[in-house]
């Protein structure tokens, strides 16, 4: 078997593979549910119901999708310029850190002034965290995959140190957690009484802004040019290093907004379990979305839906929630394969 490039893929070839990928993912999940001794249709039905079967379920999915939209956008922006930012996790915590530093009583401003300030502070903190690997890359050619990945662990330990020390909540009964945000620093609910907060709106806005940058601005054009062919971009006079730095600032900032939104919208304080790997899951989200900023929103909803649905399914029938991880991994692998199939044809000997 070999792959042969297709110069003009048909419409069916463009549309069919992703659906096939989803169908196979569902089959794999069914098989595993069966192995776990449950009725696969019931399991899938429960996942679907848990993700979107009620108003509560849907809002929970949107809630879970919010940080994933931010980290997905962060990864998509960076990957489009071929800046391999694996450090969205660290940038997320940087954003969360900035939020609790300024939002727990240092600034006593009304919410209208305080919330934008906290968002900007978070954005800058995240940008700064990715700036270091980006500078090392353009200045010394240090591989950013390594530096951003390892910085995740360093930064988490740094946060841990702060939570055990200067930022520790004196009323926290010894737990490593920060003080709670003041009331004005909390993102309000969109609808009173439901858990969904304005962070989700901010995430949608961020996706629209990133799309606009990508399609309509010189920076977006430069980022795509640098990503697709760095040598040609340099030859044409595009300031490649400056573009990479700008990309890093944007990407880091977006990931940090996930931290801001989680702390100010959901948790209210910073703990070390703020993110169950939102930064890494952002990579899956961005890849599923083919690095398209609007696709990131859809992919984040899909991923969040599977997580939320699997949680609720697991409570009902006792099939482990790891099913969600397997479904996502399968979906990602198959999607990569699907992309291949839209560009190549398999030729059998």
């Amino acid at each position, binding site marked *: 078997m*070999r792959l*042969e490039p297709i*110069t*003009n893929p048909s419409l069916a070839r463009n549309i069919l593979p992703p659906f096939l990928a989803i169908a196979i993912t569902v089959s794999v999940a069914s098989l595993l549910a069966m192995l776990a001794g449950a009725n696969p249709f019931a399991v899938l039905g429960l996942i679907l119901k848990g993700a979107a079967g009620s108003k509560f379920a849907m809002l929970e999915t949107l809630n879970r999708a919010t940080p994933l939209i931010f980290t997905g956008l962060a990864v998509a922006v960076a990957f489009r310029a071929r800046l391999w930012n694996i450090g969205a996790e660290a940038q997320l915590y940087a954003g969360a850190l900035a939020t609790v530093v300024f939002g727990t009583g240092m600034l006593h401003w009304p919410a209208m002034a305080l919330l934008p300030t906290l968002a900007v502070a978070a954005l800058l903190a995240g940008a700064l965290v990715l700036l270091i690997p980006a500078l090392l890359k353009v200045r010394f050619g240090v591989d950013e995959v390594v530096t951003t990945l390892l910085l995740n662990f360093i930064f988490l330990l740094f946060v841990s140190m702060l939570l055990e020390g200067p930022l520790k909540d004196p009323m926290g009964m010894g737990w490593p957690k920060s003080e709670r945000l003041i009331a004005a620093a909390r993102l309000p609910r969109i609808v009173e009484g439901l858990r969904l907060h304005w962070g989700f709106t901010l995430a949608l806005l961020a996706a629209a802004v990133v799309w606009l940058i990508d399609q*309509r*601005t*010189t*920076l*977006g*054009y430069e980022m*795509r*040019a640098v990503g*697709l*062919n760095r*040598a*040609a*971009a*340099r*030859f*044409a*006079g*595009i300031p490649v290093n400056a573009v990479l730095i700008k990309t890093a600032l944007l990407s880091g900032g977006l990931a940090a907004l996930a931290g801001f939104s989680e702390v100010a919208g959901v948790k209210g304080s910073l703990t070390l379990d703020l993110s169950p790997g939102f930064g890494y899951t952002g990579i899956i989200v961005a890849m599923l979305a083919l690095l398209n900023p609007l696709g990131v929103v859809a992919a984040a909803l899909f991923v969040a839906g599977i997580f939320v649905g699997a949680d609720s399914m697991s409570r009902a029938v006792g099939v482990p929630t790891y099913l969600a991880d397997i479904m996502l991994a399968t979906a990602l692998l198959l999607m990569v394969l699907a992309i291949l199939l839209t560009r190549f044809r398999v*030729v059998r*000997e």
Partner: protein
Amino acid sequence: MTNAETAQVVLRLDRITKRFGALTANDAVSLDLHRGEVVALLGENGAGKTTLMNILFGQYTADSGRVEVMGRDLPPGHPRAALAAGVGMVHQHFTLADNLSVLENVTLGTEPLWRWRAEDAAARARLARLASDFHLSVDPDAKVGSLTVGERQRVEILKALYRDARILILDEPTAVLTPQETDDLFVTLRKAVSNGLSIIFISHKLHEVMEIADRVVILRHGRVVAGMATAKTDRHALAAAMVGSEVSAPRVAPGTPGVALLQLRAVRTPDRGNAPGLKDVTLDLRGGQITGLAGVSGNGQAALADLIGGLCIPDTGRLDLDGACPVEWSPRVAVESGLARIPEDRHKTGTIADFSLTENAILESYHKAPMSRSGWMNWRQAEAKTRAILTGYDVRCPGPDTPIRLLSGGNMQKLILGRVLEANPRIILANQPVRGLDIGAVNYVHEQLLKARDRGAAVLLISEDLDEIMALSDVIHVMSEGRLSPEFARGTMTPADLGLWMAGHGFDEGLAHAS
């Protein structure tokens, strides 16, 4: 020449048809190759030569038709089968690993995976024997990354011979070679033929086809339109059969030299690996004339092109524009000073393959009005500009939204021409502007350069094709090991004279003369 009629048929292509969507790349193409014969496959870009060879070599599968090697059917779509049957291919774009040595490249894929230690000595001896048998001298321990283009090609040929190839396919082998290297290649090919190998030689260059081939097969729009023995034809007939009408080479009248627009004074740049930097280069590019730069590839032309193109600055010495040294020197400053740059490699540096024609057309102008204002793109303007280029420079394509990777080399080059010439540049840096193009596109590019010259632009034409240099240039320089020869006026030098300079003779006397 062997007696082709009676000799054994080693390769038979039988009514090969291959379609890519709506395009029929090969339409019932049949071809016989006899033992000890050189058949030239001639045709414009996009005529289907490369597709045909890829089918033969198993990289594509034909929609219909058969490939027969030594009387046996070749299973389609299986490069290993072609290799095992004794078919070797030397691609236009080499398939070598830069970080491995010549020996490692040649033996790569022939060694079993599980052996602890490569049997260096045997392989080395075999390589040495092949090298001497076929007149292919190259250092087996040199890293391929440090070799010149000509040497890399020798490695490719050695690779095929090492695998016991009986049929050699050479795709545009001379496109990257100097005249001397081409002569060397022909010596090798003749040795191969006398050893009983058969060769398919793909080329655009008519005189080379006449020189090396026994028979010529001409493809046009995927069909065989003519097949003839070279002894019974001439270059004009071949050219006519190839493009469908008589080709007129541009008749070049001398230019009227104006003032020097760009000057280099004793410029030195650092060496890059094995490629020399510039060594005290002094050069005047005057308006209204074409300055030809001849030389063997890898003798500092890349450094000179990078310097003038704004990609690097002199170590010592100075670069003057209109008699003054620019404060800053970068690609953008160069373009804004009225410099047009046609890059050597249109795939790697000239264009971005996955970008549309529009996005490629504005690569050098996107950052300022009217293509963008304060950071916002104006795609309508960009598309209008692209459409103007498409019609003004006869770029054949489905439309401005097409990804440029779908265009043929000629159309790609026309888009680049349009991109850089639209701004009416005063200085044009044309680095290998017609490499790999068909005659029609070559003439078009040359006409555009001459037109620019005639309206007063200074043109620096860097080429490894001595014919091209001599046909177009008003003055000629030769580069060797980073040094630049004195300026020779049009018509004062024979190819043999230039060849001596290219080989490095005359520089010391030249310098003594200048001082």
